[in-house]
Every structure is written in structure tokens, then in C-alpha cells.
């Protein structure tokens, strides 16, 4: 077993390479957006509206209806997408793992309450509710993130609780308890390391998922507000120009696809390697 594992690590798969390259490119461009585009992404120039791509060096991917640079906006949009994707997942993980650990480790009232909550949340048509709520409360960056956290923490909580329940009665934990090791130490030293694999896989896939959801919401006019350059927003704005200036919406569309694909490829590869028992598989 150990041998086959080593072998698999030794031969990097296509999934890993493509995924890693895509994500590295996107993350780097998002991080260095200000250095790459010192002029910023919202410089309006009514004299050069809707310039086609690949013609002028100042607008390599063309310009939008306000004469803003599409490339700079796609990169800026990446920052927003990654921000939403990553913060919401971090929020959900923090909440979910904490509650899952407590529930699984101590059982009792917390566990009961949590499981009731999980039952309800699983019975609810969550995406539908999310869309309803954000339509009612109004879309904003913060609302979108909160919504994604609320909708996803349960996944982590369930995963962690299940793992903890399986581990808590194992000998090494019982032994640690018997010699008086503090609870938090047991959690940090013995339980958490066993959880990282599946949790990281789930996180990667959820970042991808959240980027898609955010762009859908924004496209419907329910996500981040239209003055912030986001991929979903650019698609919505560019939609009516699709037949006359395809580049305004095609490039942000491609950006979403490549980012999500990259994350899915990575997640998929990681699932094979970090979570061989398949706790996170569908």
C-alpha cells in the first residue's frame, strides 16, 4: 500500500499539473493586480469604447462600453471571486470544525442540538432559500459571504463529527485521557491531524463551488454590487453586448471556467491522495 502511494506521488498526474498551473496563475495575477495594472481597473475613457481585443496594446483583451480595460477588470474580478470563495470557506470551516469537534468529542446537549440543526438544514431547499433571502435582503459582498458560510458549515461539522466519533474511543485517545492529558491537547494533537486531509479536499471543492454561486448570484443582480468589478457582474453587463462586442463577456466567462476547473482538478487530485477512504466523495 505504502509503495503504491509513493509511486502515485512520484508521477504527477495531468490533473495536478493543469490544476496547479491554472490556480497559481490566477492567484498570482490577483495578488499583483496593482503592480500589473497601475492605472487601475476603472479608468473610464468614453473615446475608446468597445475596442476589440488583440488590436491595441493598451487593451489586449479589448475595452468595455465605458472604455475600461477588459483584462484589468478580469484580473480585478478575480480578486473579488477569490475573496468571496476563500473567506466564505474559511468562515464555514472555522464554524463547522469547531462545532463538529465539540459535538463529537463531548456529545451531550451540543451534539443533540447540532444534529437537530443539521437535520433541519439538510431538509431545507438551501440554495433556493439563499436566493430568496438575498433577493429580499439585497445583495452585497458581505451578504453573499455570510450566506455561503451559513449554507456550508454543516458539511464540515458533519464530516468532523463523524471522524471524531470514530476516533474518540480508540486506544490512543483513551490512553491519553487516562494519563490526564487536557481535552484541547487531545483535540489539537490527536484529532485535528487526522481531519486535515478530508477537510482540505472539501475546502478546495467548496471554493470552486462558491465562486460559481457568487457569479450566478451577481449575474442575477443579487450578489456583489455592480460598481465592484466581479466576473458575474461583468457577464451580466456584457450580456447585451454579446452579439456586437463578445469580448466584454466572453473573457470573464472564461476566467470563471478556468478558475473553477483548476480548483476542481486540484480537489479531485487531492481527494485521491489526501482522502483515500473517500469521506468527501459526493
Amino acid at each position, binding site marked *: 500500500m505504502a509503495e503504491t502511494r509513493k509511486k502515485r506521488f512520484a508521477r504527477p498526474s495531468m490533473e495536478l499539473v493543469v490544476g496547479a498551473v491554472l490556480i497559481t496563475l490566477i492567484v498570482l495575477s490577483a495578488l499583483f493586480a496593482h503592480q500589473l495594472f497601475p492605472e487601475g481597473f476603472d479608468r473610464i475613457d468614453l473615446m475608446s469604447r468597445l475596442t476589440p481585443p488583440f488590436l491595441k496594446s493598451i487593451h489586449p483583451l479589448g475595452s468595455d462600453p465605458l472604455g475600461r480595460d477588459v483584462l484589468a477588470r478580469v484580473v480585478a474580478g478575480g480578486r473579488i471571486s477569490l475573496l468571496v470563495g476563500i473567506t466564505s470557506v474559511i468562515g464555514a470551516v472555522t464554524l463547522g470544525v469547531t462545532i463538529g469537534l465539540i459535538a463529537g468529542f463531548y456529545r451531550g446537549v451540543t451534539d443533540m442540538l447540532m444534529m437537530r440543526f443539521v437535520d433541519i438544514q439538510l431538509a431545507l431547499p438551501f440554495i433556493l432559500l439563499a436566493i*430568496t433571502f438575498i433577493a429580499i435582503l439585497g445583495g452585497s459582498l458581505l451578504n453573499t459571504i455570510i450566506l455561503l458560510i451559513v449554507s456550508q458549515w454543516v458539511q464540515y461539522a458533519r464530516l468532523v463529527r463523524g471522524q471524531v466519533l470514530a476516533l474518540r474511543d480508540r486506544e490512543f485517545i483513551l490512553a491519553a485521557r487516562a494519563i490526564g492529558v487536557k481535552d484541547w491537547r487531545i483535540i489539537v494533537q490527536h484529532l485535528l491531524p487526522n481531519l486535515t486531509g478530508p477537510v482540505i479536499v472539501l475546502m478546495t471543492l467548496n471554493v*470552486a463551488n462558491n465562486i460559481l454561486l457568487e457569479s450566478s448570484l451577481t449575474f442575477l443582480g443579487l450578489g456583489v454590487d455592480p460598481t465592484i468589478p466581479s466576473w458575474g457582474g461583468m457577464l451580466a453587463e456584457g450580456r447585451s453586448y454579446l*452579439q456586437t462586442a463578445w469580448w466584454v463577456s466572453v473573457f470573464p466567462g472564461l476566467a470563471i471556467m478556468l478558475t473553477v476547473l483548476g480548483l476542481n482538478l486540484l480537489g479531485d487530485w487531492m481527494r485521491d491522495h489526501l482522502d483515500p477512504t473517500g469521506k468527501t466523495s459526493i
Partner: protein
Amino acid sequence: MAGFIVKRLLQAIFATLVVTLLVSYAIRMTGDPALMLTQGAGSITEADLVRIREALGVNQPFFVQYFGFLRDMVTFDFGRSFLGGTSVAVLIGGALPSTLVLAFWSMLISIAFSIPLGITAAVHKNKALDQVIRVISLVGLSFPNFWLAIMLVLVFSITWNILPPSGMSGWLSYIMPAVTMGVILMAVNVRLVRTTMLETLSSQYIMVARAKGLSETKVLYKHALRNCAIPLITYMGLQFGGLLGGIVVIERVFNWPGMGTLAFDAVGARDYPVLQASIMVLSLLIIIVNLLVDIIYGLVDPRIRTE
């Protein structure tokens, strides 16, 4: 088993109450429907607004309104839309079948493609064909569905003019919305079929079948597939909620006269009765489907019940 079903039913009722309470309360935070109705009016006095609020019944305290809504629901009286006073039952009666039909075809398309693809991938595990199928299914999963929808309209309606760009009129109009939803579902289902197939194929039961000298097609599509059916059905049941969520977006793009369009328009118009009732109906639908899945699963795998 009876105890399990009762427990689940109670949970379902409780969940429905939670949903309707939340939605009813939230929509009332968006503001006054009387103001919405009079938006184009030249001169509106406070007296006019009071009069309209009274007619709509939104002048009462929240819980009075909410319990009134619940009471009406129990008697299957869905109330009237604030917009024009149309019976909500009539609106839902028109919209629900449209959504369900679309959901049905989406699922069918996804199953029709994901089963052969998933099985092929499993059979050729880790070979080139498997890799290709896996990557294709990942690409399908990476498309924003609304984007795919717009692209399809551009090609099939505007460039070639062979499919209607929107609306629900004749079987041709089903193709693009169902394919859009189907592609997303397919991407997930291919992977599911592949995984369960791999497990089944390594089981003794299949080895016995093979040893008996049955043809490979028969082994795969009869014996192995039957074994995969339960996890597939279960998972598709669980997908149902997500599918309806996705349909809301797709209905918007294709101007599909379904529940999504109904609920979405109702939010915009502050049409409390329509929104409450449509969310309630959709929630119930999803809850019932989940419940059925649980029951099927519980019947097949008794371990579930005890957890």
C-alpha cells in the same frame, strides 16, 4: 421503521414551519407593498396608503398575518396575489408543472449520458479514456450554467434560428433549458456512477457473474448497474434541491414560466402571498423527495436508521 418515518415526518413539518416563518418575516422587511403598488402614481396621500394596506391585510401585526397564512395553507387556500388579486393557487398550478417537467427532462438527460460514460470510465480505470471522461465531466462542472444557457441561445436561436430562445411552447423549447441543467447534473453523476461502479466491480458478486461466463455487457449493465441503482437514486434525490435552485437561474434566462420566475417576480413586487406560497410549495416538494429517499435508503440499509 414506522418510528423512523414518524420522526422524519415531524422533522419535515418542523423544517417547513421554519422556512415559512423565515421567508414570511424576511419579505416583510423589504418594505411596504402599498408603496410598491402606487409607485407610478402622481399623488399619493397617507390615507391612500392606509386604505390599500388594509385591503391587502398587511396592517395587522406580523404573527396575526403569519398564523392567518398557516391557517389558509392547511385549508389549501393559498390566498391572492397582491398584484392584480389573482388566486395564488392558479399561479402555482400553472408554474409548478412547468418547473417539474423541466426538472424531469434535466434528470433524464443527465442519467442517459452519465450511466454509459460512468461505466466506460470505471471499466477503463486510470487509462486514457477514463482520464478524458473525468476531465470532460470536470469541465461540465466548471461552467456557470447561465453562461452555458446564453451561449446556447446565441448559437441555436440567433445564429442558426432552429430553437426558440425563450418561453415554453412546444417540445423544441424544452431542449436548451433541459440540456443546460442536464449538463451540470451529468458532470456530477458521471463521477458518481464511476465511483460506485468501481466498488461494485471489485465485489465478489461480480466476480461470480463473470466466472459464470456471462457476457461483459450483461455483467456491466445488468448485474453491476442494478447494484449501483440505490446509491444513484439516493444521490439524485439529494440533488433535487440543488436542481430546483439551479432551475431558478435557468428559468430566468429562458423566461420559463415556472416556480423560479414566479418567486423571483414576487420578491421584486413585494407580493407576499405569492412568495410565501411558492417557497412553501418548493420546500415541501424537496422535503418530501428527501423523505422518500431516506425511506428507500432506510429500507435498504437498516444501519442508517439507528444513526
